[in-house]
């Protein structure tokens, strides 16, 4: 009896989380201009329509380009920043850590306004470049945090051992440190990419003429919910799902290969 109640409760919980997404995918195959029940037959024409939409193609290209650049810049900077923030002791270290994390909790709306004012002040014309800069600002804390957790569990005796075996500091980093924190770095990259693809508010403020995918979808929604949006969202969902699986696989591989051990002082 008790098990039954728990089971129902669990099913309802998951339904609340995933039912909207299931409907979104479902309606992307619905042969009717208004996404509503009853289901009128299976069609792929909304997907086909995506293929003809050149504005969409440009928006998608912009989004991918921006997300890729943001991922590279944020992941590299975040990894570099994580090392001193975890390993070194210096004055205002805690303040430094706080300042790095802070952009995570600043509302995107405020950050968008602030960036717009700043770009106007330094007379930087709005472009894909400014969007990338904006995205780096808000994704950097995530990258730092994810790489840091990996570094906190890192046994530094391993680096000493590499040095002892004749590896210079650079080769130690390449052969020992980087492979061991790679799951963290890859995880950070995947998250940054997703966050950048998703972002709307900051992008809206600093985008200028260049529209991204999120902005395009928003413009479509102004004329009511088009089935095309459903199809597009389903494609994006599928893409995210694949990325998620890759990420999980990489993290899992890293974990099985690296038993954690605290450093010997």
């Amino acid at each position, binding site marked *: 009896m008790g098990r039954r109640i728990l089971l129902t409760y669990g099913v309802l919980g998951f339904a609340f989380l995933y039912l909207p997404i299931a409907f979104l995918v479902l309606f992307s195959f619905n042969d009717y201009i208004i996404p509503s029940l009853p289901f009128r037959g299976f069609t792929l024409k909304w997907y086909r329509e995506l293929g003809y939409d050149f504005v969409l193609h440009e928006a998608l290209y912009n989004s991918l380009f921006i997300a890729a650049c943001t991922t590279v810049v944020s992941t590299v900077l975040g990894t570099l920043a994580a090392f001193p923030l975890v390993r070194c002791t210096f004055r205002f270290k805690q303040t430094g850590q706080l300042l790095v994390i802070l952009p995570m909790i600043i509302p995107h709306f405020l950050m968008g306004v602030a960036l717009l004012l700043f770009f106007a002040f330094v007379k930087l014309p709005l472009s894909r470049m400014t969007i990338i800069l904006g995205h780096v600002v808000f994704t950097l804390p995530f990258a730092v945090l994810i790489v840091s957790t990996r570094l906190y569990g890192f046994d530094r005796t391993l680096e000493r051992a590499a040095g002892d075996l004749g590896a210079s500091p650079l080769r*130690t980093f390449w052969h020992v440190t980087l492979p061991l924190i790679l799951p963290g770095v890859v995880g950070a990259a995947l998250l940054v990419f997703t966050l950048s693809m998703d972002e709307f508010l900051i992008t809206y403020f600093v985008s200028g003429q260049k529209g991204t995918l999120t902005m395009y979808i928003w413009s479509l929604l102004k004329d009511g919910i088009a089935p095309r949006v459903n199809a597009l969202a389903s494609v994006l969902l599928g893409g995210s799902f694949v990325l998620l699986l890759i990420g999980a696989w990489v993290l899992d591989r890293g974990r099985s290969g690296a038993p954690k051990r605290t450093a010997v002082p």
Partner: protein
Amino acid sequence: MTAAPPDNAATLEPRQAAPRDTARTGDRPAVELRGVTKRFGTTTALDSIDLAIGKGEFFSLLGPSGCGKTTTLNLIGGFESTSSGTLLIDGKPVQDIPAHARPVNTVFQSYALFPHMSVADNVEFGLRMKKVPKAERRRAALEMLKMVSLAGFEERRPSQLSGGQRQRVALARALVNQPAVLLLDEPLGALDLKLRKQMQLELTRLQRQVGITFVYVTHDQEEALAMSDRIAVMDHGRILQIGTPAEIYGAPANRGVMEFIGSVNTFEGRVESVAGGRATVAIDGAGPVAAQADVGAAVGDRVAVLVRPERIRMSATPTAASGFSLAGTLEKIAPLGFVTHCTVQLPNGIEVLVFRLNNPDGSGSEIFAEGQRVFLWWDHTDGRMFPANTRIDSTGTPQVASPLGRPT
């Protein structure tokens, strides 16, 4: 109870001098420290250490935690830099050479195997850094793994190995580089007792086989005594004594060494008489005992007499053989297989530990019962006399030890 007399002073002196003029090896030492000092902020971890380790020697640094033994190892390995003094490896000063360029390899306490590499890749790492061709380094690694009885394990990950096996991989990974010196930082500390005993034997066998100088850090005196050619006993950043295991145990240079190595009974009292190498010391509240008379012991001096538990004889009746006997009550008998530990309480409250060997033929072993009145005595050569006020933390190095601390 049949071991050689402990204070074989004749052999102690030249052996202690040996590393300095390297008469032992007839060659320059593998590692030499000259007046090496290491400070961390305001604390002095090493206080002007002089040390010379011969080629092919199994040398142990022994002492309680915080004595400076690990710091010494880190200095040799290049993980710390000296504050002052000269550090030579193979006759060349190495203070300015970073760890990765020194001809030294280390076996870490935590093994520090690279978890993302196979066993073979771990062992090959040092050769790979030296840009040895792939085929050649693979061959060397496999040969080394065979030597540590791990043939067939080369494709495993370190996480798939037991503690003892990881230990062997760590050894192979260091030895394959054929370093001038191998540093071992309490490498057996994480193993259980049985495995530790087995690895002790294996390490000494391996060391003989490869002929590489081993510098071994441990706080386990039994381990050091069992494995080493020579031992440096350290405390508070200083070396108390350097010598062979037999010298360290049988002829400790000072009270600190004697109290740190093995079990020991300490009696404090005043010198009553000195005659012909034999001193009589009146123990506070327990009557006179005999001790070896050393230079500088004058009548009336306050001294401590230290006696090993296995050197004390016990009988049910007083004996005249040694010229003295201490009366006491047998408090506790603990049979531990081949040896029995007896605790005897003296009238002044001091508890004396007596070890009695259980001979298989039962000869010479009286039967005692707990609560019984017993008498203790020992040969005067087994009672070692040190100034009463010296403790392990105030004793100096052997060179500056007070005259009482050195056998004549």
